[in-house]
């Protein structure tokens, strides 16, 4: 049961506008919003970069149950799955003053720029950040070819 609350209406309107702008933001130069609450979009947010030997992935994922985290690599596909713990269910709805943190199960798959050595992938979850380093397979590394000048 819900009572009419004008501020809630504002909040709904704000979200609608944010959603409308979101598509423009993705294509354009807008800064990605950091830690979106319940917006329907990729979770967790990820940065990925590479150097000659490794691919690095960093995911912003606070409040996970570390045991639920599952990482898998198949060829050049990295999949991150897990569950963000919520207080939902254990607390009566009328006891909430604010609920902005989203939660639940998630899964996200990325295409890596090269094939990686799946036995040597390392992952660490610390203070809400998941850091993964994936060594590139030997065949995928750039090779310096000596040019002989005759």
């Amino acid at each position, binding site marked *: 049961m819900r009572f009419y609350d004008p501020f809630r209406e504002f909040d709904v309107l704000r979200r609608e506008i944010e959603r409308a702008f979101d598509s423009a933001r993705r294509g354009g130069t807008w800064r990605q919003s950091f830690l979106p609450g319940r917006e329907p979009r990729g979770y967790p947010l990820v*940065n990925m*970069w590479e150097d000659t030997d490794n691919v690095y992935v960093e995911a912003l994922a606070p409040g996970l149950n570390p045991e639920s985290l599952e990482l898998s690599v198949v060829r050049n596909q990295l999949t991150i799955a897990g569950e963000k713990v919520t207080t939902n269910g254990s607390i009566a709805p009328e006891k909430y003053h604010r609920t902005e943190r989203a939660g639940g199960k998630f899964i996200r798959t*990325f295409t890596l720029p090269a094939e990686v050595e799946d036995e040597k992938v390392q992952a660490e979850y610390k203070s809400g950040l998941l850091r993964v380093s994936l060594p590139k397979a030997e065949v995928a590394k750039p090779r310096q070819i000596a040019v002989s000048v005759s």
Partner: protein
Amino acid sequence: MAENTIATKEHEMKATPQESTHEPERYVTPAVDIYESDEGLHLMADMPGLDQSDINVSVENDVLTIKGTNRWKTGGEGMLIQEFEPLGYYRQFTLGSKIDQNSIKASYRHGVLELKLPFAAEAKPKQIQVRVA
């Protein structure tokens, strides 16, 4: 039923206007859950990537301030996907008079800051025995 629902509002923490004016370029507003139990209010805020020394929680003039300074760096030369950049966190709440401001406890685990704000003793619900004669 209506009276019952409204009665809890006196404990409520309200976001203060300051939160939107505080250097918005360098800080983000962390998402929070606030819920109530018999002992007090619980606040949980998503603030990933901090060390203990980066977190600052303070109360001044009935205003609770949560601040986090992000010092970690992300990314490198060959950026492939960039969806976030590390920023600081900042948010303020006005505390209701029922909160015992000297007994606020904070902990940080897996990137979530959890605050326990107990009610002052006189604000806790009291059970009154009814005698049936």
